[in-house]
Structures are given as C-alpha cells and as structure tokens.
C-alpha cells in the first residue's frame, strides 16, 4: 500500500510540509525578533528605572532646596536642623576639569591618530597603536596614584610656580593661574583625565581615518595637496561624524570619572577662580561622602547624581544635534 501511494502522498504532503517549514521559520524569526527586542527594551527599562530611583532618592533634597540647589555655593552638612547644600561647587569642578581635559586630549588624540594613519612608518604603527590601547586598559585608581605620587609633586614644585610667576601681572590670567599651588588641584585632575580619555579619541579617530578611501586621498595628492591639506580637506571632513563620536565618548568618560579624580582633586567644595586650587566634581563628591551621609545630605548626593545624569544627557544630545546639522550642511 505504501508503495502505491508514494507518488500521491508526496504530491499531497509537499505543500503541507512547506507550510510547516515556513511556520517553523516564522516562529524562529519571531522568537529572534522578540529576543532582540527584549534585549533592547531591557536597556530602556534599566534607564527608566535608574532615572526613577534617582528622582525618588533625590526627592527630599529637591523638596528642601528646589532650584536654589543649582546656584548655592555652600556645602554645609553639619548645620542642624537643616543643612545648607548646593551643587555649584561640584558642577563647576565637573565642567572645568572636563573642559581642560578635552582642550588637551582632543588635539593630542587626533594628532596621534593622524600621525598613525598618515605619517607613521608601518613598523612603528602597531607598537604605538597597541600602547595607546593599553592606556585605556589601566585601572583608573592607578592613574590616580600616579597623579598623586608622581605628577602632583612635579607640577606643584616646578610647573605651577613658573606659570603663576609668568602671569602674575596679566589681568584675568593672574586669576585663572593664581597661587598658592596645591598638590591636589583642578588642573592636576584635568591632566590625569586628559591622559585617561586620550586612548578613546585616538583609537576611534584612527579607526575612522582608515576608512577614508585611498582613491580620495591619492586624488588629492595627485592634485598637489600637501599632507596637511589632505588631512584638513579630505580625511577630517570624510570622518567627521566618527571623530565627533569618539570625542563625545571621551567627554562622557571625563564627566563621570570618579576614582582617579577623587584621589587628586582635593575634594573641596570651595570655588576659586584659580585652576591650581583644589575643587571637587560631582562623582568625587558622591564617592567621598556617600558612605557617611544620611537624611537630606544623602538625598542631596543622589540629586547630584541625577544632575550628572542630566548633564551627560544634554552633552550627548547636543552632540547628536551638532552632527545632524553638519550632515545637513553637507547635503546642501
């Protein structure tokens, strides 16, 4: 019986099998779809959860201080019954250290990337590249200790006095570079930060520079461009989005870096115009005070965390916007 019905069966079962197979594909596909979708949603949920718990934790401080928290310079947790706490000191420190770090790290980082892709003899390319990437792997506390034991004494005894003396009679600059030099200072913290974020900028810039089609570059050289002109007019415009992405990643790291900064910034809530004086950042303030805080003090620290979150968010949003603008202009 089986022999006889074989051709008939195959005829009949073919479309049936096909439907089943298709259904299996569909199931696999939709499982895959939901798995990936769930992974993406988990991130969103986490983010939402973090924001909500930050807001809940910060609520007592928001209620007590309101918007004044942003402009208050004092940080006096000892006052009872109600401590006076303000975010201006840590906000100032966070912005200033990140700014100085970026001012140093962006040109140097991009410079290294250009050297590696345009000038570097192939023999040197790998060792230098690996060395830069290794910088990214060093734990941040090591940077802090190095900054504390090696960089700080050198800066305080040799670099800072010279700078202070040089600008002593120049208006504005004599405030920014005012003495007395401090071992633990905004400037030292910025320098260490600059070294820490350098690998991000360099590694990403180098990778995107390598994506520039050789034909474009060679055509430019053929037209008689110098290397500088090729970099300025071909490489950088072609890779602008990637480079800015790398810079923003570095900025995000600089804004949030905690351990190394706590070690060398001096943890002082005072704001003085001088970058050679001690200061604090949001993350450093949280790291050094969280364990011992309670009540409104604790809540204020969580509010600081929320502020850092908002600050980082705005920086990233601004970067996106800038990128979109640039691309629009390119389109025109």
């Amino acid at each position: 019986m089986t022999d006889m019905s074989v051709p008939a069966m195959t005829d009949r079962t073919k479309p049936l099998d096909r439907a089943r197979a298709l259904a299996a594909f569909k199931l696999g596909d939709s499982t895959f779809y939901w798995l990936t979708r769930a992974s993406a949603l988990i991130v969103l949920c986490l983010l939402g959860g973090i924001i909500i718990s930050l807001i809940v934790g910060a609520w007592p401080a928001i209620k007590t201080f309101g918007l004044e928290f942003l402009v208050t310079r004092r940080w006096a947790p000892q006052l009872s019954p109600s401590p006076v706490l303000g975010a201006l000191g840590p906000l100032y420190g966070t912005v200033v250290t990140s700014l100085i770090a970026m001012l140093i790290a962006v040109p140097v980082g991009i410079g290294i990337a250009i050297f590696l892709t345009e000038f570097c003899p192939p023999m040197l390319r790998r060792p230098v590249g690996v060395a830069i990437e290794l910088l990214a792997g060093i734990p941040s506390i090591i940077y802090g200790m190095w900054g504390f034991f090696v960089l700080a004494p050198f800066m305080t005894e040799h670099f800072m006095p010279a700078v202070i003396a040089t600008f002593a009679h120049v208006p504005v600059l004599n405030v920014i570079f005012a003495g007395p030099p401090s071992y633990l200072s905004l400037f030292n913290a910025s320098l260490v930060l600059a070294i820490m974020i350098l690998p991000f900028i360099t590694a990403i810039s180098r990778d995107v520079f390598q994506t520039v089609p050789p034909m474009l570059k060679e055509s430019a050289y053929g037209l008689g461009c110098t290397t500088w002109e090729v970099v300025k007019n071909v490489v950088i415009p072609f890779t602008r989005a990637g480079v800015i992405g790398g810079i923003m990643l570095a900025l995000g790291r600089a804004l949030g870096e905690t351990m190394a900064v706590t070690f060398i910034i001096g943890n002082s809530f005072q704001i003085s115009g001088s970058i050679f004086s001690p200061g604090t950042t949001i993350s450093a303030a949280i790291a050094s005070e969280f364990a011992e805080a309670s009540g409104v003090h604790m809540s204020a620290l969580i509010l600081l965390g929320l502020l850092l979150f908002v600050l980082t968010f705005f920086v990233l949003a601004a970067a996106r916007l800038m990128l979109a603008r640039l691309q629009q202009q390119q389109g025109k």
Partner: protein
Amino acid sequence: MDLSKIFRAAVVATATATASLSAQAAEITGAGATFPYPIYSKWADSYKSETGNALNYASVGSGAGIKQIQAKTVTFGATDAPLTAEQLTKDGLAQFPMVMGAIVAVVNLEGVKAGELVLDGKTLGDIYLGTVKTWDDAAIKKLNPSVKLPSAPITVVRRSDGSGTSFNFTDYLAKANADWKSKVGVGQAVEWPVGVGAKGNEGIAGNVAQTKGSIGYVEYAYAKQNNLTYASMVNAAGKTVKPTMAAFQAAASNASWKAEDGFYQILTNQPGEASWPMTAATFILVYKDASDKAAVAEALKFFSWAYEKGGKSAEELDYIPMPANVVSLVKAMWAKDVKTK
C-alpha cells in the same frame, strides 16, 4: 518601604559584601571607625591565634558603622562620635567605650622635628579657618620663637568623608576657638572653609607625608606608623604638652563615665595641667536584643578578652586602655541589658 531605605540598604550591602559573605562559623563581624582600626586588627590577630575565632572588622568610618549596625549587616558597629542616650533607646542599641586614643596635628615642614612645633587651639582653628595662611604668621611665630618657620603657604588637609576623628577634632576647635564655633561648628562632616579633603586617617597621613608645608590631623598611631611630624599643643590649663601616654591618660582620668547615658563622653579640651587636649574615646554599638544572639555573645567574648588582655598591645600602639572601674561598669551593663541567649 520607601526607596531611600532600599538605596541605603543596597549601599551598605555592597560596602560589606565581603564582611557579610563570610559571616559564618565563629567569625565576628563589625564595621565602623577607622580611628581604632590599627588596635582592633592587632587584637584580632592575637585573639585568633589564642582562640581560633576570627574578627572581621571593616574600617569604613564611624557614620558607615552606625548605618551598618542599623541595617543589621554586622554584629557590632564602631563609632568615635558616641550616640546620645535618646538615639540608643530609639534603635535598641547598647553602647560602650572600647579604647581611648589621641588625635594629633601633623605637619610636613623641612627641618622641624616631631614635637618641636607648638600650636594652641586658637591658632589651629585659625589655620583651619584659613585666617592664618602662612607658616611665618605672627600667631605661629609667637608660640614658636625658636623654630625656624618658612614663609610658605600652609596646605590644610582635612577629611573628605564623614568621620568620628573629624567630629572630635572640630569639637576641640569649637571649644578652643570662638570663630570656629560660630562659623563652622561641630560635626562628622562640616563645611571646611579651606584645604584639601582626603579619605580616612590613612588618606590624611598620606597627603601630609607627600605635601610640603601641609598640616593635617590624625589618630596618634597613624602619625607614629607613618613617621609624621606631630605638633605639641597648649592645653586648656595653658601648659604645653607633648602627645605621650601620660598626657592621654591625664585627659582620660578626668572623665566620669556613666552607663545610663550610654557612656556618652567627649574627652576634648579636658582640664588638668598634663592633659592632652585632643583625646577621644571610641565606642562599640551592639543590639540589646539582636536576632543572632550567639553572634553577639561571641562579640562580647572578644571585647571582654580585649579589656582583660589587650591593654598592653593597646599601649604599644599608643591607645589608652579603659580604666578597670569603667570596664566593670561596662560588664555590669552587658549583664543587665544585652541579651546573649
């Protein structure tokens, strides 16, 4: 349960992950003040070799110690700033002094030897207020006519974290310097007018050792272990004293300890010609009616051992053991208030 409590519990839990994970067998867990950490760890060593029981003490700071005992992640908490009787009753905690120690001002000045520099509470307060800015300031010169002082700026080093050492230090400054009392006040964390913040006694010791022209305050043992230059102090009686065991004991002998108020006692600026002005006791907190009573019993066994046999090693590290009459008061309180079964 509100979220801030969850937050706190989570923080405490991570901070003591190691301590609570290993809380099995006859291991006593505690957390708190960094000030007595050197002596607690020394005691733990000897206790372990004698009895086989281990003490796991996390030196996380007084405030954190109080929080951890409140979160019940440890068997005992340790704090330099005693809780008031009112707070103790509210939390159901028993408090007793374990050992006394002294805080010293340490400086990093080239050519100045330990004990050579003399400071008084007023001047120390002014340095920490930022009104005395350089080492050759008239106020310091007046106290030190024979010491060669540089015209370098003073780098003030203080704690960045909340601290019982800071509590006792600011308490002394408030007693000795009216400006300090009105402008800054007393607390485990205060609004420091000047200076750089360092974490823990060890952080201050490290910073002062590293920074030329700096001044800081640490528990005496930290000054000694790190070979830091300590300053002599003018005490409440107007006499210049060096940080010696005799001076610490003189300050401690003036106190009257009472079990009823949780042995609340702050030993700064004590009268007496020989008294060291910055003496402080450090306290232990345990639950009167703990859920794990066997653990409390183990902890009390250790403390009892420390009172009886730990005196010599305490003195070696320049802590002052509790006088015998205080110890008997403490033990009477244990028998009366702390349930171990």
